[in-house]
């Protein structure tokens, strides 16, 4: 193959990848556009006119901001619990040899391999049969969210731990650090990006979940449930404001982290 041919080949796949990324972002552009929409009718799927109104009064549709706040609270608490428990499990899975390790692996993988409708309905079956059917709400949603985030945390942190050079820890031990010091000064800082990624993933999974939440929420309304409810009636453009804001926030966080990482790397060099 000629050089030119190879150049095209190399950039063809990059171009294809970028096209797929564009597909991933197509609806987001629509969400952004629609956040400035001034709909003529209530059930409007077209862009009728430009306005700043929705961004100035994001809480106008009744119940929207309450729902967002419920989702944020559940997301934060679920993330903290799931990240803590999942990280401990990941350490046990990678760093310890024990009986039943492969069975535990399967046990952790199973919740990820179950359709959400099955996870949600089985939890509901448990809550109903143990007499909590009338007390569905914040706590039952929280329990459900921790449950389905847990496996994703374990897998993410595990991936980071597995890729880590254990010779660094051995070196620390050789330099007379005890296990505790080695953990906090070497292991933890090295695993931290993995833990952070797992936490970010947990939060996004929790904030976004609808199917499991909807079955176990009782009368509590989370943000996705609010969106679902309004999709049956009218779709207030403020929903798109929240969607856009969350997206931009995530983007700023991730790009900021990347920039900080690059600056740090440049300094080390």
């Amino acid at each position: 193959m000629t050089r030119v041919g190879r150049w095209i080949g190399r950039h063809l796949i990059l171009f294809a990848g970028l096209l797929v990324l564009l597909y991933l972002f197509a609806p987001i552009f629509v969400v952004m556009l629609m956040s400035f929409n001034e709909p003529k009718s209530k059930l409007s799927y077209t862009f009728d006119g430009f306005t700043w109104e929705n961004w100035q009064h994001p809480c106008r549709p009744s119940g929207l901001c309450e729902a967002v706040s419920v989702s944020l609270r559940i997301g934060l608490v679920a993330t903290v619990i799931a990240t803590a428990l999942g990280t401990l499990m990941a350490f046990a899975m990678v760093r310890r040899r024990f009986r039943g390790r492969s069975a535990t692996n399967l046990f952790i993988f199973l919740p990820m391999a179950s359709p959400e409708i099955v996870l949600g309905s089985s939890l509901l079956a448990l809550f109903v049969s143990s007499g909590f059917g009338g007390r569905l709400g914040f706590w039952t949603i929280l329990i459900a969210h921790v449950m389905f985030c847990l496996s994703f945390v374990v897998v993410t942190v595990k991936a980071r731990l597995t890729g880590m050079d254990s010779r660094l820890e051995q070196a620390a031990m050789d330099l007379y650090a005890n296990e505790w010091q080695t953990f906090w000064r070497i292991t933890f800082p090295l695993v931290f990006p993995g833990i952070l990624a797992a936490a970010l993933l947990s939060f996004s999974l929790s904030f976004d979940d609808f199917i499991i939440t909807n079955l176990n929420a009782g009368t509590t309304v989370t943000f996705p449930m609010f969106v679902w409810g309004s999709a049956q009636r009218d779709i207030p453009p403020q929903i798109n404001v929240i969607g856009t804001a969350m997206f931009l926030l995530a983007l700023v966080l991730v790009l900021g982290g990347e920039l900080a990482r690059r600056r740090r790397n440049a300094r080390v060099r």
Partner: protein
Amino acid sequence: MSALVPVPAAGKPERQGRRLTAYLLLLPGGLWLLLFFVVPIVSLLAASLYDPDGSIEAGFSMTWSWHNYVDALADYARPFGRSLWYALLTTAFCLLLGYPLAYAIAFKAGRWKNVMLALVIAPFFTSFLIRTLSWKMLLSDNGFVVDALKAVHILGSDGRLLATTAAVVTGLTYNFLPFMVLPLYASLEKIDHRLIEAGGDLFAGPFTTFRTVTLPLSMPGVVAGTLLTFIPAAGDYINAQLLGTPKQRMIGNDIQRLFAAGAYPTAAALSVTLMAAIVVLVLFYVRRSGTEELV
């Protein structure tokens, strides 16, 4: 590392102690999964055998009604088959779209690797319901996608996208694509570049190198990705509800509707059947693809 204070090394802990810490580390998370994943599945199994004539108010009694399964399958065979078929299509499309993207990120993105990876996850933060609603708008009858397809005569003058199988599968593919890309990327990233170079050195063309080196080495990612796409797609009902019509109804729609209506035994029987079908398919598939290590 220079901050390390040299202190006498602690004695090597006993093997027994290390094993004990493993169980201690696993305990809290394991208990959570046991209580809120395993026990619920068991109670779902139980609920699927309850007396179908019970109600939430009166309570359900355990009558070992195995015929719940027969009835459920007889009544819901079509949405069931449709779910599996749509999930299969979705997985195929996700693999087709996801592989080039994962490949580009792993090998061609250079210093933009992390940014591109972040962009794959970023859409998660706009609620997937909102994104599905905006697909509804993109695919609507007077939207520009339909206009464009009509202009090049792929779609007839009275053709439409919304409320068709194509719309539902498009939405499903869209929603689960990141679950395909991430494991694919993880396994591609691990491949030793020298192996691919060796392919070139041995006069294999790029395509042959890909087929004989890259693709086989990325198989764990393909398996994990197809599972993480197929399984949620089979249980989804949001896309069918928002982008389809009752003709595109999937099994998730029925399970959700039955649970909401309080018909627990039938709904539970359907859930168990879905889970069983998936487990059987997955075991068969994993066996065939020869990948034992899943994650």
